[in-house]
């Protein structure tokens, strides 16, 4: 379960370009719930994810994961509970290390790292099996350095790395936005399969209204750092792209084209 209690963050406080990124934002996501976050640029979506992951320190307010207040925890401590897939495929993987080594790093996310050998036969077999679920042939490239993979393969790897070990919370930060439509589709399908199979509590930021309509149990819309709209349950099942766009205060070309 994720709970955000009146989170507030102001950038450039007291200066001419002061910007309220999060304005007393409160949010609840039940265990196993898949929430889709939408909102125009600058609405506070990324700030919210960063506040949850610990990359952004809040001015006030709390972040609670599974009942524990993690507000004061640094990024690497929160990593025990949450996993994140970034928009940029380069950010989520270590380029100069191999596929297997990246899997190992993710595998040890919530464990204490020891002085035992990292990649052993058991682990390699597990990684092979997990990667084969993607159907991209990554299972045969365990010793390939990640920088030699395509953006789509890297992002798929990031996803497998994130969902492995069933984190308490999965954060997806526009994770298909940088991919071509076909690869984006593969990654999105893999995401939904993993989230359903492992019943992960998930928060996905997207600019793709069709994704917001098709996936997830609820739609959360942010505007100017506030929660503007929350659609869940039966209402969510009936919602259309046009309905969602209607709620945007500023409509971008991209959204209009999508409708």
């Amino acid at each position, binding site marked *: 379960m994720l709970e955000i209690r009146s989170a507030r963050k102001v950038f450039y406080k007291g200066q001419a370009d002061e910007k309220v990124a999060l304005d007393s934002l409160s949010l609840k996501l039940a265990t196993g719930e898949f929430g889709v976050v939408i909102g125009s640029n600058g609405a506070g979506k990324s700030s919210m994810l960063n506040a949850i992951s610990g990359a952004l320190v809040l001015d006030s307010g709390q972040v609670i994961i599974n009942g524990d207040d993690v507000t004061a925890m640094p990024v690497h401590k929160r990593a*025990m509970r949450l996993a*994140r897939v970034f928009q940029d495929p380069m950010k989520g993987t*270590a380029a*100069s290390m191999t596929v297997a080594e990246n899997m190992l*790093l993710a595998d040890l996310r919530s464990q204490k790292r020891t002085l035992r050998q990292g990649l052993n036969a058991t682990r390699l077999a597990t990684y092979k099996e997990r990667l084969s679920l993607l159907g991209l042939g990554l299972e045969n490239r365990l010793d390939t*350095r990640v920088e030699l993979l395509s953006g789509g393969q890297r992002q798929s790897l990031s996803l497998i790395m994130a969902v492995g070990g069933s984190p308490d919370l999965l954060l997806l930060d526009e994770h298909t936005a940088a991919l071509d439509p076909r690869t984006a589709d593969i990654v999105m399908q893999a995401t939904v399969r993993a989230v359903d199979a492992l019943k992960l509590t998930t928060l996905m930021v997207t600019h793709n209204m069709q994704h917001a309509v098709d996936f997830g149990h609820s739609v959360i819309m942010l505007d100017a750092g506030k929660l503007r709209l929350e659609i869940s349950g039966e209402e969510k099942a009936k919602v259309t792209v046009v309905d969602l766009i209607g709620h945007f205060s500023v409509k971008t070309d991209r959204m209009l084209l999508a409708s």
Partner: protein
Amino acid sequence: MDLIQNIFSSFVALVPVTLAQSLILAFVVLGIMIPFRTLNFPDLTSEGAFPLGGCVCGVLLAGGASPLTAIAVAVIAGFLAGCCTAFIHLRFRIHTLLAGILMMTMLYSINLRIMGKSNLSVFGSPSVFDWAPYLQPGFPASKIVIAGLIGAAVFILLNMFFKTEKGTAIRAVGANSDMAEAQGINVWVATIGGVGLASAFSATSGALMVQSQGFADVNMGLGILINGLAALMIGEAIVGKQTVLRQLAAPFVGAVVYYQLVSFCLAAGMPPPDLKLATGLFVLAMLALPSLKRSRGSAPARETIRE
């Protein structure tokens, strides 16, 4: 013909001495490689950590400590110096190179304070090189054996370490620190520990050097960094850097080849004062090579020491 023979014979005569020296200096090259390559933390601390190790070792030897104790204390001193550099960078967000320069400059005074004077003779004090079995102490052979054995042990241990769970985590911090943090790795601990370890190797080199040459000097680190970089680049050109094993072998191979090259140049009649210029030009050429290649249209190579 005579001239060539002359050059060759004087070069060959120097091979054992140079080999002994290069095996000792291989630890500085290792201490330069780890921050530059593994941690992505371009670091200049070694220029101060090398004499620090030497000065600490010299003072302890002069005070009658055993050679092993002297090296152990030098290693700890080097480790702390490296930790300080990493801490300055992390805490105050000062560029790694500047943090290194700060440490190196401050270490000069500290080294002078430790020794109380600018140089110290420990000639005749016992050294680890006396312990080579069946070999006459004081000759290059005993130094080659002892330094070579320590080098081999360090190489094997590091190769094993970088493949453990902890070692993989440290490499991840160098490869992508944001990603490492998101995977639950404490970037501060890994960076401080890693740079500390590297400086500890530089200090080891200084301590061994003092035991080998029989004196310590505050200026013994002058130019060690550029020599080490040149050696590292030669090593990487020979054995590559694509795997952990190759990257770790590069400092040792590079040090041996580089110092033989220097010795050959000197035997061939290059005036010693020109050595630094030649080394500098060599490092510059190695760094410039990728960008020259790129302008001719081949694949761009990312060079972390540049920029």
